[in-house]
C-alpha cells in the first residue's frame, strides 16, 4: 500500500516543476509574437527527435535503467495548433547492465496520439498510445513479440523560427511492454529528456 500511495508523488512534483519552469521561461520569449502571426487554421507537421534516459525510478528493484532512442511524429494540427493528432514511431534502445554492458536494439513503438500547443506556441503537451515490438531476442522472448506502449510528454519547450521549431522535452514518461504477460513480463519504463526539430509542412 505504501508503494502505491507514495511512489507517484515525485513524478507529479517533477512534472509540475517542469511545467511552471516552461511557462516561466518560454512565455515571455513568445510574448512579442502577435496572435495573428500564429500558425494557420490547420496544417500538417512533422517532427524528428532523440532522447536519453538513465534512470528507472518506477522500479523498486534497480535504480539504473539507461535507455536512448529516436522518434518521429507526423500529423495534423487544428484550431491554430490548439489540437494535434499524430502518428508516433520511436525506437528505444535499452542498456543491459546487470552482468555485462550491452546496448540492445530495444523496442519499436508505433502509436496514435493527441496533443496541444499552448502559451502562444511556447509549450506543447501530448499523449500517445499504441504498440511496442521487441526488436531482438531477449532471454525469454523472441524478436517480434508485441505488447502495448504509452507515452506522456507533459510540457515541452518550443522555440519557433518560421515554419520550423526546436522542441525540448525536459521530462517525458513512457511505458513499453513488448511482452506484458505473466509470470515473466518484459516491461520497461523510461523517463527521458528529448530534443527535436519540428516543421510545419
Amino acid at each position, binding site marked *: 500500500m505504501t508503494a502505491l500511495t507514495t511512489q507517484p508523488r*515525485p513524478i507529479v512534483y517533477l512534472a509540475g516543476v517542469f511545467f511552471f519552469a516552461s511557462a516561466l521561461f518560454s512565455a515571455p520569449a513568445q510574448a512579442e509574437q502577435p496572435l495573428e502571426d500564429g500558425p494557420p487554421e490547420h496544417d500538417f507537421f512533422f517532427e524528428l527527435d532523440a532522447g536519453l534516459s*538513465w534512470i528507472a525510478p518506477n522500479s523498486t528493484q534497480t*535504480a*539504473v535503467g539507461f535507455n536512448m532512442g529516436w522518434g518521429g511524429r507526423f500529423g495534423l494540427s487544428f484550431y491554430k495548433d490548439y489540437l494535434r493528432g499524430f502518428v508516433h514511431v520511436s525506437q528505444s534502445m535499452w542498456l*543491459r547492465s*546487470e552482468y555485462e554492458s550491452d546496448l540492445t536494439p530495444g523496442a519499436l513503438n508505433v502509436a496514435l496520439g493527441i496533443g496541444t500547443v499552448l502559451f502562444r506556441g511556447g509549450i506543447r503537451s501530448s499523449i500517445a498510445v499504441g504498440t511496442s515490438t521487441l526488436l531482438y531476442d531477449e*532471454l525469454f522472448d523472441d524478436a517480434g513479440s508485441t505488447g502495448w506502449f504509452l507515452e506522456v510528454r507533459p510540457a515541452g519547450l518550443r522555440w519557433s523560427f518560421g515554419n520550423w521549431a526546436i522542441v525540448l522535452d525536459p521530462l517525458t514518461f513512457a511505458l513499453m511492454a513488448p511482452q506484458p504477460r505473466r509470470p515473466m513480463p518484459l516491461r520497461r519504463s523510461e523517463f527521458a529528456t528529448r530534443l527535436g526539430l519540428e516543421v510545419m509542412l
Partner: protein
Amino acid sequence: MSSSRKSAAFCLLVSTALLSAGHTYEIGSAFSYPCHESLTRRSFDASSAPGESLFKETAIPLPLDNSWSAVLESMGKKVGASYEDEVNRFIAFSLILGARFPDVGHNSVFDANSMHELHSHPGAQSSHCLRRDDDNWAAGQERALERCFGVIQSGVERAVAEYRRPREEQLVKMRTFVDFYGQIDVYVWSPAFELGKTLHTVQDSFSHTVRSDDLRRIRHVMNALEFGPLNQPNRDGLIHSLEMDECDDGAASIAEVAVDAGADFLRYASMALAGDDTNAFEPFFETWMSYEPGCGVDNDFCGSKWAELARTDPTTTIINCSASLPAPSHRPGRRWIDAVILSLWFLLS
C-alpha cells in the same frame, strides 16, 4: 578510469557498497569484471580431470524449466561457462549463482538500498572474511577468522544437509535479478548453490587477508568498515584494498592460487557430500586456512611479499560514510535519490 578508481568514484557518489565497492572480489556487471563468477567456474573446471565432473555421479535431475540456461548465457563470455554437457552447465550455474549471492542476494547490483544492507552490516563481514568494527587487536582478528572459518564449515554442512534430501527436492527455485525482467525464479541444484555461496567466502579469504608468501597461511585480516585517519591498522586491521579485489589485474597472481584453493574446496566438499561426513572436509582447513599469529603491521606481516599490494589503493574515508550512514529508508521515494546519484555516477564514469 581504472576499475578500482571507478569503484571509488561510485562509492563516493552512491555512499553505499555496490558492485566492486571495496568489500569483495568484484562480481560481474556493466562496470566490473566477473571475478567471483570466473574464479568459481575455473575452480569447478580444475576440480576434476578434463571431460569429467566432480558431481556427475550424483545423477542430478535437470529441471524442466530451463530459464537457468538463459540466465547463465546472459552472464557473458568473461565467465566462460561453456559446457557441452547440460548437467555440467547446470552444476556450474548453481555454483556461480551461489558465488554471487553474498554480494547481491536476490537483488540487482544497482539496488543501492539492498547493497548497503548486504555489505555495511557488521554481521555480514564474516561472509567476506573481513573484520567487524569491534574486532580489535590480535584477539579481534582471531575472532574474525573464527567467524570466517565458521561460515565455510557451516556452508559445507548446509550442502551436506541439502544433499541428504530426496533428489527431486534438491532442485529449488532461487530468486535472482536479470536485466529488463527484474526478479525471476530459476532452478538451482541446492547442494551446489550452497557450495557456491561458501566458495565466495573462500575466495574472499585471499583478497581480504595478508597471507604468507605461498598463500597457504593467513597472517592478517583486513577491515572494510573502518577507514581514514581514525583507522589504526594495529587495532582495526589494515584498510581493505581495492587493488586486492582486482582478480584480472593487480592481484591476478593471488587469484590464480585462489582458483586452486577453490578447486580443493570443491574436491573435499564433494567427499563430505559423498560420505555424509563433514569431517572429510577438515584437510581443506589444514591446507589453506591455517592462522600464523604474531604477524602484524609493525613487522610488515612477517615480511609477507603481499604486504605492499595489500596497502595499495585502500578504500577511502569517503566510502566509510556508507558504513556510518543511518540504515537506508525502505520508503520507495528513497530510490529516487539513489537513482539520481547513480545517474550522476554513470555520466561521470
